[in-house]
């Protein structure tokens, strides 16, 4: 979210002096203040945010549901093997992997691979613990997961609820760069699962869904742009965005209709995407390369 007219200077001053005052006196304390204040301005809470934005990234669950609705056969080799969870040593790679496994969990849920879903859940639990968001995946929630392992609807809701809790916790803890990485990992994995195992011939509905992700990609690049540790990822996403530049989108506003009694608005606007085969292949290969890089 962008908040207009936030009073940045008073807030920054308060924080700067607050760190000095509450952190203890002395020259060393004052030196720390300057560093902490800079950090607060770049990755601090919404109280200090001016000009930078947060965006909604479409849930990978929606993407997974699309491929399931199309009756795309289950591909057990697509989700990341939960046994590989130990390979993610840095916090940055763990955050991306958490997003990847979250999307995989949804995939395994809709395709009813209960055993692998449980193992993936363990991987999620482990990463959440490393990232100090284990409280979003508390014992009660984990028990609900295990009890619902054959109930895909419940699993999808539990997945959404758990990841929302993690997102909330990370934002409250002012670790938005971790939150964005989790979203980025989930988004790339969602696309990767949509593209399927191999071939370059895709269902037109998949092509449309892939083509519709350009704006989300731009948002992700902007969000990750604040994270100095994400330079490589941002560079590869920018290359993907260049390929997305070849997607033609048309949008026509149509007056929405409203059903007040049922609290529903029907958004009737029309839109169309067009993408040349060559550009599509470029997008596919770049998505697979980025996924390979973040799971390497």
């Amino acid at each position, binding site marked *: 979210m962008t908040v207009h007219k936030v009073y940045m200077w008073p807030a920054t001053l308060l924080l700067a002096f607050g760190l000095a005052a*509450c952190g203890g006196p002395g020259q060393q304390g004052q030196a720390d203040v300057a560093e902490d204040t800079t950090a607060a301005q770049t990755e601090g*809470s919404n*109280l200090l945010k001016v000009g930078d934005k947060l965006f909604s990234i479409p849930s990978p669950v929606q993407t997974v549901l699309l491929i399931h609705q199309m009756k795309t056969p289950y591909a057990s080799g697509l989700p990341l093997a939960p046994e590989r969870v130990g390979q993610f040593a840095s916090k940055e790679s763990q955050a991306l992997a958490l997003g990847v496994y*979250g999307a995989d969990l949804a995939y395994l849920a809709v395709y009813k691979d209960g055993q692998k879903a449980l193992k993936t859940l363990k991987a999620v639990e482990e990463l959440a613990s490393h990232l100090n968001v284990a409280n979003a995946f508390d014992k009660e929630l984990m028990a609900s997961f295990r009890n619902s392992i054959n109930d895909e609807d419940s699993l999808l*809701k539990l997945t959404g609820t758990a990841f929302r809790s993690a997102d909330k916790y990370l934002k409250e803890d002012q670790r938005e760069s971790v939150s964005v990485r989790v979203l980025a990992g989930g988004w790339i994995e969602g696309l990767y699962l949509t593209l399927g195992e191999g071939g370059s011939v895709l269902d037109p509905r998949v092509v449309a869904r892939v083509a519709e992700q350009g704006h989300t990609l731009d948002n992700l690049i902007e969000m990750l742009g604040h994270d100095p540790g994400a330079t490589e990822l941002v560079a590869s996403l920018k290359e993907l965005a260049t390929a997305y530049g070849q997607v033609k989108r048309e949008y026509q*506003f149509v007056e929405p209709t409203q059903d007040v009694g049922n609290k529903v608005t029907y958004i009737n606007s029309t839109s169309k995407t067009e993408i040349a085969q060559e550009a599509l292949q470029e997008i596919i290969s770049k998505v697979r390369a980025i996924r390979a890089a973040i799971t390497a």
Partner: protein
Amino acid sequence: MNMRRTFFMIAACAGLLGGSEAFAQCDTIASICEKNITAEYIPDGQFYRALLREDEVAEFEATLFGGATYRVAACSGLSEGNLIFSVYDKQRNLLFSNKELNNEPYWDLVVANTLDVIINAELDPGKANSGCAVLLIGFKR
């Protein structure tokens, strides 16, 4: 320690405490708001919040996929109806606002074709001067 430093110490500690109180308030509001994303909706996995004062407007961008039904829940304060939220397309055509609907705390959007939207949230000046605004999104299977 001189007077000025004492003043800043008090102001800073009050500011920091106020900040954590505001975030704790967001947490409580989120719990209230979550009740409006009912069982038939899958949470989108994200938590949107902003601390607003007076006429500040929080804004975020989203892509809504064609063929999907979304529920947007918007809350501020411990009672419902304090937050005005409006949905626009990228050309700033108004698609929905709860302003003329008694600030309804949630609304469903049935999307025919994929579009990028901007969602604005602001406090109803007649009901609140400041507070945490929370937005939650869920979608139907």
